[in-house]
């Protein structure tokens, strides 16, 4: 029942946001009417413009028709240089479901709650030449799309994330106005697509770079000029959920001191789950050794569960902590370290010198076992992040139906149809995600227990 109300509220608020967009787009009509032609030669514009249609429905057919007559000053910017080539801010009023969904599940330096409240968060930037810089992201004055209206020093806020203007010749006040942002998709010599992002200041475009990403350039990241060590939305969420869980468990744990009594209050809420993890996860895999590892297993389970559920709370800004590969990577790394530190002689013997197998089998088996050692935490990392992110995308896609049917706020009847579709679909998806939240926390914990069990088991060479 509660899920129903949540999704109803969600859809109503989406309609509210839509009517605002409605008003805005009618205002924008004055500026944009007539210039629907985009120069697609040379490079493609990064954004999907299918929704960019204020006075007609089919963008492509009309752009061919109107191409000649409306060669105005509003077209895609051409950047001859990365620093200071003239550019104008471009308004993208279209609805791009992919970009919207991805934007919402991304980590951010501001906490955007329903496009109404934006909570600025502290920024901690590390730069090799300047050292550590500390300021508040309120300096950026984030607006629509979580883009900052202002820049601070070298930094701007683009789609909720701090970016740095790379140009050495860029000169401005400490706080300067940013007119807009632009993204250009390019292809390198091997035909691989990549994006270039520009901040537009004083009618000129300046190339911006994102924070350093430790992916070796594989996932579109790489080493850049700065590290963003800020407590982002995900970090703050982790802190909040951890504290919430701590106080919840602390008040329950206090009742266990003194003479044993029947559970009461918060204790009877926490205890069954605690006992379930102990009796059905820890003890089957670890037996008598479970007490040593129980705190870790409990911490993993409740940390993941708490954050999974936190991400399910509507209107909180789709916090996607457990769906973020960085977080699951850290947890998998901790599991990897703990498993291998506690691995006994038998564990290592089973990896490097499997007992009871001939030498030619060992040549194949040892590399496989060695690989398995690393694949185990890798699967932990990917499974959790993949499942949670997929759930978030599914929900956002269903909510996005409202905007797709409503043609981004221009068609009220369509948006109502979209709402009627989105309510049951979102409700269904939220129910599924509630199960997924528990299942994924459980799976991560039970696999950790099984790895720990395998690493600490006493064998009597029965192979």
């Amino acid at each position, binding site marked *: 029942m509660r899920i129903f109300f949540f999704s109803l509220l969600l859809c109503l608020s989406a309609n509210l946001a839509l009517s605002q967009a409605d008003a805005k787009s009618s205002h924008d009509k004055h500026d944009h009417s007539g210039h629907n032609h985009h120069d697609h030669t040379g490079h493609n514009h990064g954004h999907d413009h299918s929704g960019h249609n204020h006075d007609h429905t089919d963008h492509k057919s009309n752009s061919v028709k109107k191409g000649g007559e409306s060669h105005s000053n509003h077209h895609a910017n051409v950047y001859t240089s990365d620093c200071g080539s003239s550019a104008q801010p471009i308004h993208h009023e279209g609805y791009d479901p992919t970009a919207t969904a991805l934007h919402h599940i991304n980590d951010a330096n501001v906490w955007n709650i329903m496009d109404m409240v934006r909570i600025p968060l502290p920024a*901690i930037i590390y730069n090799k030449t300047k050292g550590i810089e500390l300021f508040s992201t309120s300096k950026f004055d984030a607006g629509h799309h979580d883009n900052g209206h202002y820049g601070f020093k070298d930094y701007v806020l683009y789609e909720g994330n701090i970016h740095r203007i790379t140009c050495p010749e860029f000169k401005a006040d400490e706080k300067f106005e940013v007119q807009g942002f632009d993204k250009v998709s390019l292809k390198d010599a091997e035909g691989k697509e990549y994006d270039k992002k520009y901040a537009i200041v004083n009618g000129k475009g300046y190339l911006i770079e994102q924070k350093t990403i430790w992916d070796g350039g594989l996932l579109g990241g790489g080493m850049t000029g700065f590290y963003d060590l*800020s407590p982002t939305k995900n970090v703050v969420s982790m802190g909040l959920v951890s504290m919430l869980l701590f106080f919840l*468990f602390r008040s329950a744990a206090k009742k266990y001191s003194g003479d044993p009594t029947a559970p009461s209050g918060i204790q009877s809420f926490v205890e069954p789950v605690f*006992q379930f993890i102990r009796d059905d996860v820890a003890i089957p895999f670890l037996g008598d050794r479970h007490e040593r590892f129980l705190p870790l297993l409990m*911490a993993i389970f409740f940390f993941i569960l708490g954050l999974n559920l936190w991400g399910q709370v509507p209107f909180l800004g789709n916090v996607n902590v457990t769906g973020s590969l960085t977080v699951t990577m850290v947890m998998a790394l901790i599991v990897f370290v703990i498993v291998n530190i506690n691995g006994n002689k038998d564990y290592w013997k089973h990896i490097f010198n499997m007992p009871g197998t001939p030498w030619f089998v060992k040549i194949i088996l040892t590399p496989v076992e060695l690989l398995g050692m690393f694949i185990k935490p890798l699967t932990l990392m990917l499974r959790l992040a993949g499942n949670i992110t997929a759930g978030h995308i599914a929900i956002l896609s269903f909510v996005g139906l409202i905007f797709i049917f409503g043609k981004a706020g221009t068609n009220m009847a369509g948006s109502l149809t979209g709402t009627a579709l989105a309510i049951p679909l979102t409700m269904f998806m939220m129910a599924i995600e509630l199960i997924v939240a528990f299942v994924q926390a459980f799976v991560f914990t039970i696999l950790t227990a099984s790895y720990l069990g395998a690493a600490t088991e006493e064998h009597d060479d029965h192979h």
Partner: protein
Amino acid sequence: MIFLAGFAPFQPSPGLALWSLIIFILFWLLMAKYAFKPMMDGLKKRESSISDALAQAQTAREEMANLKAENEKILAEAREERAKMIKEAKDTSTSIVNDAKNKAKDEAQRIMTSAKLEIENDRNSALTQVKNQVGMMATNIAEKILKKELAGGAEHTTYVNKLVDEINLN
């Protein structure tokens, strides 16, 4: 992995990694110390206290059964004792009554004997008195007669004395 290029949630960010490492390890240590350990200990304590209580209940039940058997034994003994006591009391009372009866009989016998003896004595003394009285009266009468007669003779007095002596023999 290439299809994930630019997919921000899957980009490993050093800042987020550092923070999550710190937060998770803090969470783990604090929860272990202040929540999980007390809960583990508390649960273990409760479990052992429950099994203790069950064991105690079992022994108490056994003790109760023993106690009951003993009680029954004591009860049976008491019943036996009572029967014995009642029998003894009956015997005692019978013997007391018999004694009393015998004593009363003896006493009555004794009283009757002494009464008979007294009656005999009284009769004898009364008879003696009557004899003496009768003798005196007869003497007196005889005196008077004799006085009249003796004026006539001494032989008469002798005869009378002789007669009186004969009466005495009776």
